[in-house]
Protein backbone atom coordinates (compact mmCIF):
# COMPACT_ATOMS: atom_id res chain seq x y z
CA UNK A 1 0.00 0.00 0.00
CA UNK A 2 2.78 2.36 0.80
CA UNK A 3 4.41 1.51 -2.49
CA UNK A 4 1.24 2.27 -4.40
CA UNK A 5 0.81 5.55 -2.61
CA UNK A 6 4.39 6.41 -3.36
CA UNK A 7 3.92 5.63 -7.03
CA UNK A 8 0.89 7.86 -7.22
CA UNK A 9 2.73 10.61 -5.43
CA UNK A 10 5.67 10.21 -7.78
CA UNK A 11 3.46 10.61 -10.79
CA UNK A 12 1.89 13.72 -9.35
CA UNK A 13 5.26 15.08 -8.39
CA UNK A 14 6.63 14.57 -11.83
CA UNK A 15 3.99 16.79 -13.28
CA UNK A 16 4.49 19.43 -10.66
CA UNK A 17 8.23 19.40 -10.42
CA UNK A 18 10.08 21.13 -13.23
CA UNK A 19 12.79 19.20 -14.95
CA UNK A 20 16.31 19.63 -13.67
CA UNK A 21 17.35 21.45 -16.84
CA UNK A 22 17.66 25.13 -15.96
CA UNK A 23 14.53 27.13 -16.56
CA UNK A 24 12.95 30.04 -14.78
CA UNK A 25 10.81 28.74 -11.99
CA UNK A 26 8.18 31.27 -11.07
CA UNK A 27 5.83 30.73 -8.21
CA UNK A 28 4.47 34.32 -7.86
CA UNK A 29 3.10 36.84 -10.33
CA UNK A 30 5.31 39.81 -10.92
CA UNK A 31 3.02 42.32 -9.19
CA UNK A 32 -0.54 42.77 -8.00
CA UNK A 33 -1.62 44.40 -11.20
CA UNK A 34 -0.63 41.34 -13.05
CA UNK A 35 -2.60 39.26 -10.61
CA UNK A 36 -5.70 41.36 -11.11
CA UNK A 37 -5.27 41.04 -14.84
CA UNK A 38 -5.13 37.28 -14.44
CA UNK A 39 -8.36 37.33 -12.47
CA UNK A 40 -10.07 39.38 -15.12
CA UNK A 41 -8.97 37.01 -17.79
CA UNK A 42 -10.36 34.07 -15.91
CA UNK A 43 -13.66 35.73 -15.37
CA UNK A 44 -13.92 36.85 -18.94
CA UNK A 45 -13.40 33.28 -19.98
CA UNK A 46 -16.24 32.11 -17.74
CA UNK A 47 -18.80 34.62 -18.92
CA UNK A 48 -17.79 34.74 -22.54
CA UNK A 49 -20.62 32.57 -23.88
CA UNK A 50 -23.31 34.35 -21.95
CA UNK A 51 -22.06 37.73 -22.98
CA UNK A 52 -21.99 36.66 -26.59
CA UNK A 53 -25.58 35.45 -26.53
CA UNK A 54 -26.94 38.46 -24.78
CA UNK A 55 -25.15 40.72 -27.15
CA UNK A 56 -26.58 38.77 -30.03
CA UNK A 57 -30.03 39.69 -28.75
CA UNK A 58 -29.06 43.27 -28.20
CA UNK A 59 -27.39 43.96 -31.51
CA UNK A 60 -30.43 42.85 -33.43
CA UNK A 61 -32.86 44.55 -35.72
CA UNK A 62 -35.41 41.72 -35.81
CA UNK A 63 -36.34 41.27 -32.18
CA UNK A 64 -38.56 43.82 -30.47
CA UNK A 65 -36.89 46.68 -28.71
CA UNK A 66 -38.31 45.81 -25.34
CA UNK A 67 -36.48 42.55 -25.47
CA UNK A 68 -33.30 44.29 -26.38
CA UNK A 69 -33.61 46.75 -23.53
CA UNK A 70 -34.11 43.90 -21.13
CA UNK A 71 -31.01 42.31 -22.52
CA UNK A 72 -29.10 45.55 -21.96
CA UNK A 73 -30.04 45.50 -18.37
CA UNK A 74 -29.02 41.95 -18.01
CA UNK A 75 -25.60 42.42 -19.41
CA UNK A 76 -24.99 45.43 -17.25
CA UNK A 77 -25.81 43.32 -14.23
CA UNK A 78 -22.99 40.94 -14.94
CA UNK A 79 -19.83 41.40 -12.86
CA UNK A 80 -17.57 44.09 -14.10
CA UNK A 81 -14.50 41.95 -14.47
CA UNK A 82 -16.27 39.61 -16.84
CA UNK A 83 -15.96 41.93 -19.79
CA UNK A 84 -12.96 41.31 -21.99
CA UNK A 85 -12.39 44.99 -22.50
CA UNK A 86 -10.82 45.28 -19.08
CA UNK A 87 -8.03 42.88 -19.98
CA UNK A 88 -4.69 44.51 -20.61
CA UNK A 89 -2.01 42.70 -22.51
CA UNK A 90 0.83 43.16 -20.10
CA UNK A 91 4.36 41.95 -20.49
CA UNK A 92 4.61 38.45 -19.20
CA UNK A 93 7.92 38.91 -17.48
CA UNK A 94 7.85 42.46 -16.21
CA UNK A 95 4.12 43.28 -16.18
CA UNK A 96 4.76 46.40 -18.20
CA UNK A 97 1.41 47.61 -19.59
CA UNK A 98 2.84 49.52 -22.51
CA UNK A 99 5.24 48.68 -25.29
CA UNK A 100 4.26 45.02 -25.37
CA UNK A 101 4.64 43.11 -28.61
CA UNK A 102 1.66 40.84 -29.01
CA UNK A 103 3.47 38.01 -30.72
CA UNK A 104 5.93 37.46 -27.90
CA UNK A 105 3.89 38.90 -25.05
CA UNK A 106 7.02 40.72 -23.95
CA UNK A 107 7.76 44.35 -23.40
CA UNK A 108 10.19 46.00 -25.74
CA UNK A 109 12.97 46.12 -23.19
CA UNK A 110 12.81 42.43 -22.34
CA UNK A 111 12.51 41.56 -26.00
CA UNK A 112 15.59 43.50 -26.82
CA UNK A 113 17.46 41.89 -23.95
CA UNK A 114 16.70 38.39 -25.08
CA UNK A 115 17.23 39.10 -28.74
CA UNK A 116 20.69 40.48 -28.10
CA UNK A 117 21.61 37.40 -26.11
CA UNK A 118 20.39 35.23 -29.01
CA UNK A 119 17.65 33.65 -26.97
CA UNK A 120 14.85 34.55 -29.34
CA UNK A 121 14.50 32.00 -32.09
CA UNK A 122 14.63 33.51 -35.53
CA UNK A 123 15.14 37.08 -34.36
CA UNK A 124 18.03 39.02 -35.77
CA UNK A 125 19.18 42.60 -35.77
CA UNK A 126 17.71 44.30 -38.77
CA UNK A 127 20.06 45.73 -41.28
CA UNK A 128 19.09 46.86 -44.75
Amino acid at each position, binding site marked *: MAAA*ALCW*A*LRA*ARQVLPSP*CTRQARSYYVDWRMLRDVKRRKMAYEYADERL*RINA*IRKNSIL*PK*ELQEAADKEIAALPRDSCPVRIRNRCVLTSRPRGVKRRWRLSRIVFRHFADHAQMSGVQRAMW
Partner: protein
Amino acid sequence: MWCRVRGGGGLAARLLGAARPHGGARSKQELFSTSSVFSKDKDKSAASKESTPEGAAKRQEDGAETPKQQLLDIIGNMKVEVSYRKKLQQLKASENKKRAMDKLEGPDSEGSVPQGITEDAQRGKPLNPELVKAASAVASSFPHDKKQTESELLAQLRRHEETTDKQKKGGTLSIRDVISEMTIKRQSPAQRRARISGLMSLQLDEDGQRIRRERSSTQSVDSRGSLKVGKRLNIFTKAPTEPEHALKTVSSPTIWDLEFAKEVAAVTAQPPRNGFEEMIQWTKEGILWEFPIDNEVGMEDDAEFHEHIFLEKHLESFPKEGPIRHFMELVICGLSKNPYLSVKQKVEHIEWFQKYFEEKKELLQEI
Protein backbone atom coordinates in the same frame (compact mmCIF):
# COMPACT_ATOMS: atom_id res chain seq x y z
CA MET B 1 29.47 -45.92 -32.77
CA TRP B 2 26.88 -45.95 -30.05
CA CYS B 3 23.38 -46.43 -31.21
CA ARG B 4 20.01 -45.84 -29.65
CA VAL B 5 17.87 -48.55 -28.19
CA ARG B 6 14.93 -48.76 -30.46
CA GLY B 7 13.42 -51.92 -29.29
CA GLY B 8 14.12 -55.54 -28.76
CA GLY B 9 15.27 -57.33 -31.76
CA GLY B 10 15.02 -60.94 -32.54
CA LEU B 11 17.86 -62.15 -30.51
CA ALA B 12 18.04 -65.59 -31.89
CA ALA B 13 17.86 -64.09 -35.35
CA ARG B 14 20.66 -61.84 -34.37
CA LEU B 15 22.56 -64.75 -33.04
CA LEU B 16 22.02 -66.58 -36.27
CA GLY B 17 22.92 -63.51 -38.14
CA ALA B 18 26.02 -63.08 -36.06
CA ALA B 19 26.98 -66.51 -37.16
CA ARG B 20 26.37 -65.77 -40.83
CA PRO B 21 29.22 -64.96 -43.17
CA HIS B 22 30.57 -61.48 -43.55
CA GLY B 23 33.62 -60.98 -45.65
CA GLY B 24 35.11 -64.30 -46.42
CA ALA B 25 36.49 -65.87 -43.33
CA ARG B 26 36.49 -69.58 -43.36
CA SER B 27 35.70 -69.93 -39.71
CA LYS B 28 32.60 -67.92 -40.33
CA GLN B 29 31.55 -70.20 -43.14
CA GLU B 30 31.85 -73.05 -40.77
CA LEU B 31 29.72 -71.17 -38.35
CA PHE B 32 27.21 -70.62 -41.06
CA SER B 33 26.89 -74.30 -41.70
CA THR B 34 26.52 -75.17 -38.08
CA SER B 35 24.08 -72.42 -37.39
CA SER B 36 21.93 -73.30 -40.36
CA VAL B 37 21.75 -76.87 -39.13
CA PHE B 38 20.91 -75.60 -35.72
CA SER B 39 18.23 -73.36 -37.01
CA LYS B 40 16.60 -76.21 -38.87
CA ASP B 41 16.61 -78.25 -35.72
CA LYS B 42 15.11 -75.42 -33.85
CA ASP B 43 12.36 -75.00 -36.37
CA LYS B 44 11.55 -78.61 -36.30
CA SER B 45 11.44 -78.75 -32.55
CA ALA B 46 8.50 -76.42 -31.98
CA ALA B 47 5.88 -74.99 -34.20
CA SER B 48 6.21 -71.30 -34.99
CA LYS B 49 9.05 -70.84 -32.62
CA GLU B 50 10.77 -67.97 -34.28
CA SER B 51 12.62 -65.95 -31.78
CA THR B 52 10.58 -62.84 -32.11
CA PRO B 53 10.19 -60.73 -29.06
CA GLU B 54 6.50 -61.36 -28.82
CA GLY B 55 6.97 -65.07 -29.03
CA ALA B 56 9.64 -65.04 -26.38
CA ALA B 57 7.45 -63.05 -24.07
CA LYS B 58 4.53 -65.42 -24.54
CA ARG B 59 6.67 -68.44 -23.94
CA GLN B 60 8.16 -66.79 -20.93
CA GLU B 61 4.76 -66.41 -19.42
CA ASP B 62 3.99 -70.09 -19.79
CA GLY B 63 7.09 -71.63 -18.33
CA ALA B 64 8.04 -69.54 -15.38
CA GLU B 65 9.46 -71.81 -12.75
CA THR B 66 11.29 -74.72 -14.38
CA PRO B 67 13.56 -72.61 -16.53
CA LYS B 68 14.33 -70.55 -13.49
CA GLN B 69 16.35 -73.36 -12.04
CA GLN B 70 18.21 -73.82 -15.27
CA LEU B 71 18.84 -70.11 -15.40
CA LEU B 72 20.17 -70.05 -11.91
CA ASP B 73 22.54 -72.86 -12.73
CA ILE B 74 23.75 -70.97 -15.73
CA ILE B 75 24.18 -67.78 -13.79
CA GLY B 76 26.17 -69.56 -11.20
CA ASN B 77 28.54 -70.78 -13.82
CA MET B 78 28.96 -67.50 -15.58
CA LYS B 79 31.68 -65.03 -15.04
CA VAL B 80 30.74 -61.49 -15.69
CA GLU B 81 34.06 -59.77 -15.87
CA VAL B 82 34.25 -58.44 -19.35
CA SER B 83 36.98 -56.23 -20.67
CA TYR B 84 35.65 -53.22 -22.44
CA ARG B 85 37.60 -53.58 -25.63
CA LYS B 86 36.71 -57.17 -26.21
CA LYS B 87 33.12 -56.47 -25.57
CA LEU B 88 33.16 -53.64 -28.06
CA GLN B 89 34.83 -55.77 -30.65
CA GLN B 90 32.33 -58.52 -30.22
CA LEU B 91 29.45 -56.18 -30.38
CA LYS B 92 30.85 -54.58 -33.50
CA ALA B 93 31.25 -57.90 -35.13
CA SER B 94 27.81 -58.99 -34.18
CA GLU B 95 26.39 -55.74 -35.42
CA ASN B 96 28.09 -55.99 -38.78
CA LYS B 97 26.94 -59.52 -39.25
CA LYS B 98 23.46 -58.62 -38.25
CA ARG B 99 23.40 -55.79 -40.73
CA ALA B 100 24.57 -58.07 -43.49
CA MET B 101 21.91 -60.52 -42.51
CA ASP B 102 19.31 -57.81 -42.50
CA LYS B 103 20.24 -56.77 -45.99
CA LEU B 104 19.96 -60.33 -47.10
CA GLU B 105 16.78 -61.14 -45.29
CA GLY B 106 15.00 -57.88 -45.49
CA PRO B 107 11.84 -57.41 -43.48
CA ASP B 108 12.85 -59.39 -40.48
CA SER B 109 15.25 -56.84 -39.20
CA GLU B 110 14.11 -55.42 -35.96
CA GLY B 111 16.49 -52.75 -34.97
CA SER B 112 20.08 -52.57 -33.99
CA VAL B 113 21.71 -54.46 -31.23
CA PRO B 114 21.21 -52.72 -27.97
CA GLN B 115 24.42 -51.51 -26.52
CA GLY B 116 24.19 -50.80 -22.87
CA ILE B 117 26.73 -49.23 -20.65
CA THR B 118 26.58 -51.75 -17.85
CA GLU B 119 25.71 -55.39 -17.76
CA ASP B 120 23.76 -56.86 -14.94
CA ALA B 121 24.06 -60.56 -14.95
CA GLN B 122 21.52 -61.16 -12.27
CA ARG B 123 18.01 -60.23 -13.17
CA GLY B 124 14.93 -61.52 -11.45
CA LYS B 125 13.03 -62.72 -14.49
CA PRO B 126 13.64 -66.17 -15.85
CA LEU B 127 14.53 -66.51 -19.46
CA ASN B 128 13.07 -68.92 -21.90
CA PRO B 129 15.06 -72.16 -21.81
CA GLU B 130 15.07 -72.34 -25.58
CA LEU B 131 16.69 -68.96 -25.79
CA VAL B 132 19.17 -69.91 -23.16
CA LYS B 133 20.04 -73.04 -25.07
CA ALA B 134 20.39 -71.03 -28.23
CA ALA B 135 22.61 -68.54 -26.50
CA SER B 136 24.85 -71.22 -25.12
CA ALA B 137 25.08 -72.87 -28.53
CA VAL B 138 26.02 -69.65 -30.26
CA ALA B 139 28.51 -68.82 -27.59
CA SER B 140 30.12 -72.16 -28.03
CA SER B 141 30.40 -71.52 -31.75
CA PHE B 142 32.26 -68.29 -31.15
CA PRO B 143 36.04 -68.40 -31.28
CA HIS B 144 36.45 -66.14 -28.26
CA ASP B 145 35.62 -66.81 -24.63
CA LYS B 146 32.48 -68.83 -24.57
CA LYS B 147 31.39 -67.95 -21.13
CA GLN B 148 31.82 -64.29 -21.81
CA THR B 149 29.76 -64.38 -24.92
CA GLU B 150 27.11 -66.43 -23.26
CA SER B 151 26.82 -64.04 -20.38
CA GLU B 152 26.60 -61.11 -22.73
CA LEU B 153 23.95 -62.70 -24.82
CA LEU B 154 21.89 -63.66 -21.82
CA ALA B 155 22.18 -60.19 -20.46
CA GLN B 156 20.98 -58.82 -23.73
CA LEU B 157 18.08 -61.18 -23.75
CA ARG B 158 17.10 -60.15 -20.30
CA ARG B 159 17.32 -56.51 -21.14
CA HIS B 160 15.24 -57.05 -24.18
CA GLU B 161 12.56 -58.83 -22.22
CA GLU B 162 12.54 -56.12 -19.66
CA THR B 163 11.89 -53.54 -22.29
CA THR B 164 9.09 -55.58 -23.81
CA ASP B 165 7.48 -55.98 -20.40
CA LYS B 166 7.75 -52.32 -19.81
CA GLN B 167 6.20 -51.56 -23.11
CA LYS B 168 3.39 -53.92 -22.28
CA LYS B 169 2.72 -52.33 -18.96
CA GLY B 170 3.10 -48.86 -20.37
CA GLY B 171 6.16 -48.39 -18.28
CA THR B 172 6.94 -45.14 -16.58
CA LEU B 173 9.89 -43.18 -17.70
CA SER B 174 12.78 -43.07 -15.37
CA ILE B 175 15.73 -40.82 -15.68
CA ARG B 176 17.96 -43.84 -15.97
CA ASP B 177 16.16 -45.00 -19.04
CA VAL B 178 16.24 -41.59 -20.55
CA ILE B 179 19.92 -41.15 -19.94
CA SER B 180 20.68 -44.61 -21.22
CA GLU B 181 18.82 -43.74 -24.34
CA MET B 182 20.66 -40.55 -24.89
CA THR B 183 23.41 -40.42 -27.40
CA ILE B 184 26.68 -38.66 -27.52
CA LYS B 185 26.66 -36.09 -30.20
CA ARG B 186 29.72 -35.23 -32.13
CA GLN B 187 30.35 -31.59 -32.72
CA SER B 188 32.17 -30.54 -35.79
CA PRO B 189 35.11 -28.28 -35.06
CA ALA B 190 33.41 -25.52 -36.97
CA GLN B 191 30.47 -25.64 -34.61
CA ARG B 192 32.77 -25.59 -31.64
CA ARG B 193 34.53 -22.54 -32.96
CA ALA B 194 31.22 -20.85 -33.52
CA ARG B 195 30.12 -21.55 -29.98
CA ILE B 196 33.34 -20.30 -28.48
CA SER B 197 33.25 -17.18 -30.57
CA GLY B 198 29.68 -16.60 -29.52
CA LEU B 199 30.59 -16.88 -25.87
CA MET B 200 33.54 -14.57 -26.30
CA SER B 201 31.43 -11.99 -28.06
CA LEU B 202 28.90 -12.14 -25.23
CA GLN B 203 31.57 -11.38 -22.72
CA LEU B 204 33.13 -8.62 -24.71
CA ASP B 205 29.91 -6.84 -25.59
CA GLU B 206 29.56 -3.35 -24.36
CA ASP B 207 26.07 -2.66 -25.54
CA GLY B 208 25.08 -6.03 -24.26
CA GLN B 209 21.35 -5.97 -24.37
CA ARG B 210 20.40 -6.13 -27.99
CA ILE B 211 23.15 -8.39 -29.15
CA ARG B 212 22.68 -10.75 -26.24
CA ARG B 213 19.07 -11.23 -27.14
CA GLU B 214 19.98 -12.02 -30.68
CA ARG B 215 22.58 -14.52 -29.58
CA SER B 216 20.26 -16.24 -27.19
CA SER B 217 17.66 -16.55 -29.90
CA THR B 218 20.15 -18.06 -32.30
CA GLN B 219 21.64 -20.34 -29.68
CA SER B 220 18.31 -21.86 -28.93
CA VAL B 221 18.13 -23.05 -32.53
CA ASP B 222 21.39 -24.71 -33.29
CA SER B 223 21.92 -26.57 -36.46
CA ARG B 224 22.20 -30.00 -34.97
CA GLY B 225 19.78 -29.78 -32.14
CA SER B 226 17.57 -27.27 -30.52
CA LEU B 227 17.18 -26.72 -26.83
CA LYS B 228 13.43 -26.58 -26.95
CA VAL B 229 12.75 -29.84 -28.71
CA GLY B 230 12.56 -33.13 -26.90
CA LYS B 231 10.73 -35.05 -24.22
CA ARG B 232 9.94 -33.35 -20.99
CA LEU B 233 11.87 -34.94 -18.17
CA ASN B 234 9.36 -33.80 -15.51
CA ILE B 235 12.17 -32.92 -13.17
CA PHE B 236 11.18 -29.39 -12.39
CA THR B 237 7.80 -28.31 -11.16
CA LYS B 238 6.28 -25.11 -12.34
CA ALA B 239 6.58 -22.24 -9.98
CA PRO B 240 3.16 -21.28 -8.67
CA THR B 241 1.91 -18.14 -10.30
CA GLU B 242 1.65 -15.29 -7.88
CA PRO B 243 -1.85 -14.17 -7.15
CA GLU B 244 -2.66 -10.92 -8.77
CA HIS B 245 -2.66 -8.03 -6.41
CA ALA B 246 -6.03 -6.49 -6.03
CA LEU B 247 -6.12 -2.79 -6.53
CA LYS B 248 -5.30 -1.37 -3.17
CA THR B 249 -7.21 1.70 -2.23
CA VAL B 250 -4.84 4.57 -1.72
CA SER B 251 -5.55 6.95 1.08
CA SER B 252 -4.59 10.49 0.22
CA PRO B 253 -0.81 10.60 0.29
CA THR B 254 0.59 12.59 3.14
CA ILE B 255 2.75 15.64 2.69
CA TRP B 256 5.74 13.59 3.62
CA ASP B 257 4.96 11.13 0.86
CA LEU B 258 4.72 13.92 -1.63
CA GLU B 259 7.97 15.42 -0.47
CA PHE B 260 9.70 12.11 -0.70
CA ALA B 261 8.28 11.54 -4.14
CA LYS B 262 9.51 14.93 -5.28
CA GLU B 263 12.93 14.18 -3.91
CA VAL B 264 13.10 10.85 -5.66
CA ALA B 265 11.95 12.36 -8.94
CA ALA B 266 14.54 15.10 -8.66
CA VAL B 267 17.31 12.64 -8.00
CA THR B 268 16.41 10.05 -10.59
CA ALA B 269 15.55 12.41 -13.42
CA GLN B 270 18.70 12.75 -15.45
CA PRO B 271 19.25 15.91 -17.46
CA PRO B 272 18.91 15.24 -21.17
CA ARG B 273 22.13 14.16 -22.77
CA ASN B 274 21.34 15.61 -26.16
CA GLY B 275 18.80 17.61 -28.09
CA PHE B 276 16.71 14.58 -28.91
CA GLU B 277 16.17 13.68 -25.28
CA GLU B 278 15.34 17.29 -24.55
CA MET B 279 12.70 17.27 -27.24
CA ILE B 280 11.32 14.02 -25.88
CA GLN B 281 11.05 15.54 -22.44
CA TRP B 282 9.28 18.60 -23.81
CA THR B 283 6.84 16.48 -25.73
CA LYS B 284 6.02 14.55 -22.56
CA GLU B 285 5.44 17.77 -20.67
CA GLY B 286 3.26 19.13 -23.43
CA ILE B 287 5.48 22.01 -24.44
CA LEU B 288 6.21 20.53 -27.85
CA TRP B 289 3.65 19.17 -30.23
CA GLU B 290 3.79 15.65 -31.51
CA PHE B 291 5.06 15.25 -35.03
CA PRO B 292 3.62 14.68 -37.61
CA ILE B 293 1.28 17.40 -36.50
CA ASP B 294 -2.22 16.22 -35.89
CA ASN B 295 -4.65 19.01 -36.62
CA GLU B 296 -7.33 17.49 -34.50
CA VAL B 297 -5.48 17.19 -31.23
CA GLY B 298 -7.87 17.87 -28.40
CA MET B 299 -10.83 17.86 -30.73
CA GLU B 300 -12.83 14.72 -30.30
CA ASP B 301 -15.86 15.31 -32.40
CA ASP B 302 -17.38 12.04 -33.41
CA ALA B 303 -20.46 13.59 -34.96
CA GLU B 304 -21.18 13.52 -38.65
CA PHE B 305 -21.43 16.61 -40.81
CA HIS B 306 -25.21 16.50 -41.00
CA GLU B 307 -25.47 16.94 -37.26
CA HIS B 308 -23.49 20.15 -37.57
CA ILE B 309 -25.44 21.63 -40.44
CA PHE B 310 -29.05 20.52 -40.11
CA LEU B 311 -29.98 22.01 -36.77
CA GLU B 312 -33.63 22.76 -37.46
CA LYS B 313 -34.76 19.80 -35.41
CA HIS B 314 -33.67 21.71 -32.30
CA LEU B 315 -36.05 24.53 -33.15
CA GLU B 316 -39.18 22.52 -32.45
CA SER B 317 -39.94 24.16 -29.14
CA PHE B 318 -39.88 27.68 -30.62
CA PRO B 319 -42.95 29.37 -32.09
CA LYS B 320 -43.19 28.81 -35.79
CA GLU B 321 -43.85 32.39 -36.72
CA GLY B 322 -42.74 35.74 -35.58
CA PRO B 323 -39.52 37.54 -34.98
CA ILE B 324 -38.14 34.95 -32.57
CA ARG B 325 -38.32 32.25 -35.16
CA HIS B 326 -36.64 34.53 -37.61
CA PHE B 327 -33.96 35.29 -35.12
CA MET B 328 -33.38 31.65 -34.28
CA GLU B 329 -33.13 30.68 -37.91
CA LEU B 330 -30.38 33.21 -38.30
CA VAL B 331 -28.66 31.78 -35.26
CA ILE B 332 -28.85 28.31 -36.75
CA CYS B 333 -27.51 29.52 -40.03
CA GLY B 334 -24.53 31.00 -38.24
CA LEU B 335 -23.93 27.87 -36.20
CA SER B 336 -23.99 25.63 -39.22
CA LYS B 337 -21.16 27.60 -40.67
CA ASN B 338 -19.10 27.45 -37.51
CA PRO B 339 -16.37 24.82 -37.67
CA TYR B 340 -14.90 25.55 -34.28
CA LEU B 341 -17.75 24.46 -32.07
CA SER B 342 -18.69 20.90 -31.38
CA VAL B 343 -22.24 19.67 -31.84
CA LYS B 344 -22.71 19.61 -28.12
CA GLN B 345 -21.75 23.27 -27.81
CA LYS B 346 -24.11 24.26 -30.60
CA VAL B 347 -26.96 22.41 -28.99
CA GLU B 348 -26.19 24.14 -25.72
CA HIS B 349 -26.26 27.48 -27.50
CA ILE B 350 -29.71 26.88 -28.85
CA GLU B 351 -30.98 25.58 -25.56
CA TRP B 352 -29.77 28.68 -23.78
CA PHE B 353 -31.79 30.82 -26.12
CA GLN B 354 -34.79 28.67 -25.58
CA LYS B 355 -34.47 29.05 -21.84
CA TYR B 356 -33.98 32.77 -22.14
CA PHE B 357 -37.07 33.24 -24.21
CA GLU B 358 -39.05 31.06 -21.86
CA GLU B 359 -38.14 33.43 -19.06
CA LYS B 360 -39.05 36.42 -21.12
CA LYS B 361 -42.43 35.07 -22.17
CA GLU B 362 -44.46 37.41 -19.99
CA LEU B 363 -42.67 40.40 -21.42
CA LEU B 364 -43.20 39.15 -24.92
CA GLN B 365 -46.93 38.65 -24.33
CA GLU B 366 -47.30 42.22 -23.20
CA ILE B 367 -45.95 43.32 -26.54
